[in-house]
């Protein structure tokens, strides 16, 4: 299925290639480079590019294009999903998936790619199994390896491929048995200038870090499972049990994994935790514009809104912005016209604001007064949907594990500012 893989950096250099069948010349990437040139933004390169003899399917992550070369019909999502899995694995192994990290660990990268695909068909993609085959590099191990000449490759052959629990390695042992679950929710919203919600939805995930000895069998139940409208599971979750009892029952993989992704039913009203008031005005014929933006908390159930970051693409006509932030720092890039304001934490007593003037290109026509404003924020110890874990039980092992559950809410794709016509002004 997947013939070859090329890794291309943002300046258009191929810095790694791997072939699973016969070698495909790297000149095939020329078609990709053409598409890259045509695209105004790096994200705009089409994920699927047909060429006379091959098809190129690529993903862009961490400013690296992972370009897979395909020779015949294959579901494109199959390739895309696999490429993302490769990136996730690299990230898992090296902490970062940057060009430098990949170049530094080129041997491990190659060993991984060799195990993940056989003749272009995925072979081992579970992190638990890969980690048994190929040890992740650590500073200590690198030092030791150079001195002793020992290796990254596991001496023991992996058991996982034959286990009935293919995602969990056997023989797991810990002195401290711990299981942590992070419930992280993201709000995606489009809010119009007047503050009314055009669309808002909550997506959540439960990320787990489970370090438990042996073969623990866990069940996790919720106080209010009905909130979960649509879910997708890690393969370890027993689906029928969920269907019948709304309980997550699973034998977890060892280490970090995503147990569940969910969508909160759209019938529930989404509480929007922040509001933005902004007023951007340009006067016809003047080379000055006014900029005013205030943020405030709203429906946060008493929790602090933290790590707030506001960014907005100002109209092209704006030359510079001379603003005054009541807290945090702002930057304006005169080339990309991107305004970013790192607000930090919102103090409800003293609302953060950003005010000042903008200078405009002389003679330009009056720019659009409603640029999109994108907001990022975090709220700790709260799942905005109200989802609550009821209890976590462990069966199959005798020890008492330490259990922890953390909640967090974040902004997902949270945008505001665009003016939505209330009364259809198409009617002339």
């Amino acid at each position, binding site marked *: 299925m997947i013939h070859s893989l090329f890794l291309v950096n943002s300046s258009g250099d191929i810095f790694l290639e791997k072939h699973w069948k016969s070698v495909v010349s790297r000149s095939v990437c020329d078609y990709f480079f053409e598409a890259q040139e045509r695209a105004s933004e790096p994200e705009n390169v089409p994920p699927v590019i047909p060429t006379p003899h091959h098809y190129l399917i690529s993903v862009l992550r961490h400013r690296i294009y992972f370009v897979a070369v*395909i020779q015949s019909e294959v*579901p494109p999502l199959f390739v895309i999903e696999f490429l*993302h899995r490769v990136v996730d694995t690299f990230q898992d192994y090296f902490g970062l998936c940057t060009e430098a990290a990949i170049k530094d660990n080129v041997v491990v990268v190659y060993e991984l790619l060799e195990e993940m695909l056989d003749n272009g068909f995925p072979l081992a993609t579970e992190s638990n199994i890969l980690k048994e085959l190929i040890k992740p590099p650590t500073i200590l191990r690198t030092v030791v390896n150079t001195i002793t000449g020992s290796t990254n490759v596991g001496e023991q052959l992996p058991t996982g491929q034959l286990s009935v629990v293919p995602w969990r390695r056997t023989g797991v042992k810990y002195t401290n048995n711990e299981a942590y679950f992070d419930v992280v929710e993201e709000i995606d919203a489009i809010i119009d200038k007047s503050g009314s919600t055009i669309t808002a939805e909550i997506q959540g995930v439960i990320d787990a870090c489970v370090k438990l000895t042996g073969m623990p069998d866990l069940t996790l139940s919720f106080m209010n499972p009905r909130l979960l409208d*649509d879910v997708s599971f890690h393969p370890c979750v027993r689906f029928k049990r969920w269907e019948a009892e709304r309980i997550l029952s699973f034998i977890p993989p060892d280490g970090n994994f995503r147990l569940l992704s969910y969508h909160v039913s759209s019938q529930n009203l989404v509480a929007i935790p922040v509001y933005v008031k902004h007023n951007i005005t340009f006067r016809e014929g003047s080379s000055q514009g006014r900029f005013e933006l205030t943020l405030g908390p709203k429906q946060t159930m008493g929790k602090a809104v933290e790590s707030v970051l506001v960014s907005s693409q100002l109209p*092209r006509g704006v030359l510079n912005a001379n603003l005054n932030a009541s807290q945090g720092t702002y930057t304006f890039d005169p080339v990309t016209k991107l305004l970013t304001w790192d607000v930090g934490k919102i103090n409800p007593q003293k609302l953060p604001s950003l005010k000042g003037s903008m200078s405009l290109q002389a003679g330009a026509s009056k720019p659009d007064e409603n640029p999109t404003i994108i907001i990022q924020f975090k709220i700790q110890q709260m799942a905005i949907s109200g989802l609550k874990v009821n209890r976590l039980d462990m069966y199959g092992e005798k020890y008492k594990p330490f259990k922890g559950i953390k909640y967090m809410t974040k902004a997902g794709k949270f945008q505001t500012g665009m003016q939505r016509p209330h009364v259809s002004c198409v009617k002339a």
Partner: protein
Amino acid sequence: SSGSSVNIHASYLLMSVLHRNEDLREMLESTKESLKLEAMKRIVGLIARGKNASELFPAVVKNVASKNIELKKLVYVYLVRYAEEQQDLALLSISTFQRALKDPNQLIRASALRVLSSIRVPIIVPIMMLAIKEAATDLSPYVRKTAAHAIQKLYSLDADQKEQLIEVIEKLLKDKSTLVAGSVVMAFEEVCPDRIDLIHKNYRKLCNLLVDVEEWGQVVIISMLTRYARTQFISPWKEDGIFDENSEQAFYESDEEKLGTPQSKPYIMDPDHRLLLRNTKPLLQSRNTAVVMSVAQLYWHLAPKQEVGVITKSLVRLLRSHREVQYIVLQNIATMSIQQKGIFEPFMKSFYVRSTDPTHIKTLKLEILTNLANEANISTILREFQTYVKSQDKAFAAATIQAIGRCATNITDVTDTCLNGLVLLLSNRDETVVAESVVVIKKLLQTQPTQHSEIIKHMAKLFDNITVPMARASILWLIGEYCERVPKIAPDVLRKMAKTFTVEEDIVKLQTVNLAAKLYLTNSKQTKLLTQYILNLGKYDQSYDIRDRTRFIRQLIVPNEKSGALSKYARRILLASKPAPMLESTFKDRDRFQLGTLSHTINSKATGYLELSDWPTAAPDSSVRNVEVMEPVKKEISWTFGAASECHVKEWVPSMGKTKPLKSDDKFYSDSGEEEGAGEEGTGSSSEDSSSSSSSSSSNEESDSESEDKNSKHSEETDSSQSDKSSGHSDKKKADKKKRLQLKKKAKKAAPKERYQMHRPPTHHPLTQELWNLRTFTPKMVSSPVFVPMSSHELLHRMTGKGLAAQYHFPRQPCIYGNKMVSVQLTLTNSSDHTLEDISIGEKTSSGQNIHRFSSIERLEPGASVTVSMGIDFNDSTQAANFQLCTKEDQFSVSIQPVVGELFLPVTMTEQDFRKEQGKLQGMNETSATITMAPENTSNQALSKKMVSVANMGVVPTGEDSLYRFAAKSVSSGDLVLVSVDLTDSSSGRLTINTEKTVIGSMLLRDLKTALAQP
């Protein structure tokens, strides 16, 4: 001199390359392992960067047999990369792999096969073939998986091997391992996708294994099964479906269908078709986006139209994933939303465009929103579109204007509104917006050639300010086309054009010539001179096209002696009413490709694309799939999501894990063990065949008892080695992987036996027969127990048992020893001061019940206790099962008398099914009584709890408040038992039981009545 310096430079580079590689060669030839490893790492670095390292081949290949695993692996990487270029040298390594293929470690065998088959050297084709054939019969499923991968490699190296490879594929398709399934289907798709006949016998198995196959294999299998189903089942789409009305082809097809099958015959879905739909549905919840998409396309292509809706939520969920995933999913939704907008309409807001979306995502969302537009939501959509028009992304703004145009043509109610809105946009500051609006207005006016002179006038006024050629050309065309509506303006525009003609773009010039011609025909008095002037300009234009057009127009409109017959018709030619352009979705014809495929994405047939056939008009013989009728058992086994199911087998029979000793493990892997297994399988399948052809045959029973004998012998042989390991109930969870493997094996062994029993009609009573038939159609699955009482009953008191105490408990799980059996858990405790040995159930049982004994317990230390499980077929009666509990010294007669509620297994069914079944069990099959209830039991939960604690029943959801329903089936005969409680007021009500088993029905009635009356 510069040339020579280049030469020097080049040779220096070459030297340095040679030098460096020389360096590596020395390292590889050193005796120190660490140096070799270091060298190999650097070489892999070279390969990764695409640098040539082929001249090191001889030095590298020497290390192929290294003991160091990492070194060996890196050598493999190198070999696979360069073997094709250095074929002769590559042959040196072959013997190493041939040796490794015989290694006792399965992973070494697998990796040897992997590398051997990746060496693309034609000479070794026979060796590869041999290795693949051998590996395909390997005991390790992992090696067999590798063999499946190797099939494709060999096929791409030498297509002449096809026939032999198909034989291997055929063999591997029969494999029952979930590890192999995906890979062999992949090989099937690459080598012989047209050999649908190979799939028949494996179809049901693949459907049933599907949830437990790894994610990537699932995608491949689902896509193959989609194709398969389209050739084997008849269309579930009703002729008068919403779908067919806009497709001419379907219309003719349905005609044919009407001819083929009498109209009166209602459509009945093939159970195999249903099986596929049912078993793929849970995979919509997969984390793997490719799996979700493949199930979605399966439903799209195979499910009845009213069921397709289940996929929408999952597809919309995928829109949260990476942008590349969004791109593919949106494309597929775009195609779907043309045909079935209804299923996506509730999710319209999920397709709202965000300013951060890349352009290709924005355009796709726009496409979908346009497809979804209808009279009801159009105002919302247009409002949304208005914000998009203001987008800074001008390409997107232009696409939005096109979309508004499409909405305007599709929904006549808003045509005027849209048109007016577009006219407003003509005064937009941005030129691309204006230009696009002009183009779209032009198209709209064509579709609505009524009173639009105002708009045309307005556009004529704007004309001077518009510079985009396409827009200018469009306006000119409009004025020309409708010049009689704007008789004053048109000549003036032509006058202006005459002035600027020479500096215009070609498309504008062409339209100017057009306008001139039309005006000449309608208003020659005012425009004759102007036209001639323009035609003269055109005659000497630089462009061929313009000169040609000018010449043509002149001949056509200006009558002279040379002009032919055509000029008479000039007016009819130029001013003919023109068909309005169709504003259609670019996804309109995409559904000719199977959804989710690469071909669908690129909208042209990709290499290797396999067509989805049309439904057959008459269903092909469905008996070709009859081999293994394993649904009843399999359904229960794979009630989990993913491979976790095996672990559940364990939960059913907690003590099973311990009964399986390690000793037999070796046997499982040894050749003899497998042969035996294979033999069993062989006989098994042949007798299954006969069982399906004739409803009851004595050979079944024979093989039944045979396999049972074998089972019990097996466990008796082996139970000696494990009793010291087993020290209590909780131990069961510690059972290691191998045990579980054993367990799986055991469960599978048990399965065929049950199969026969399930398929032999319990009695020859015609009604039962009918019920049985029904059962295969309506989904009624045995579910897990709602409630398991913890209470246990005494079987043997320690005083009577001389220190041996026994208690029994009903775990309410399906019994794996036989599906007519009730599973019973015994807890044996040694309360004496000496070790008890050889605890077992004696041969003699007084009553006629069929009992599956627990494996004998070798030793039970003082104070220790052990839990074992057994199965008893009570024949659906409460008659006690009497048997003897033996130790080495003593025998104790004991008996287990079940309460009626334990003779059931809970069943899940819908309210609708419940009513349907209840309707069939009226008259003498119904017993009922008025009940009075203790006040504690009247609450919703308390009542249910009470009921399920008395009897092992499943709760049937009801829509009514005061009505409670429960369903179960009797364990032995499998007859349904339906219980309903209708509360008339807070403390009294009516209890009704419908079942064919009237005796246990009335007993259950009594028990329930008593229980509800008690607090």
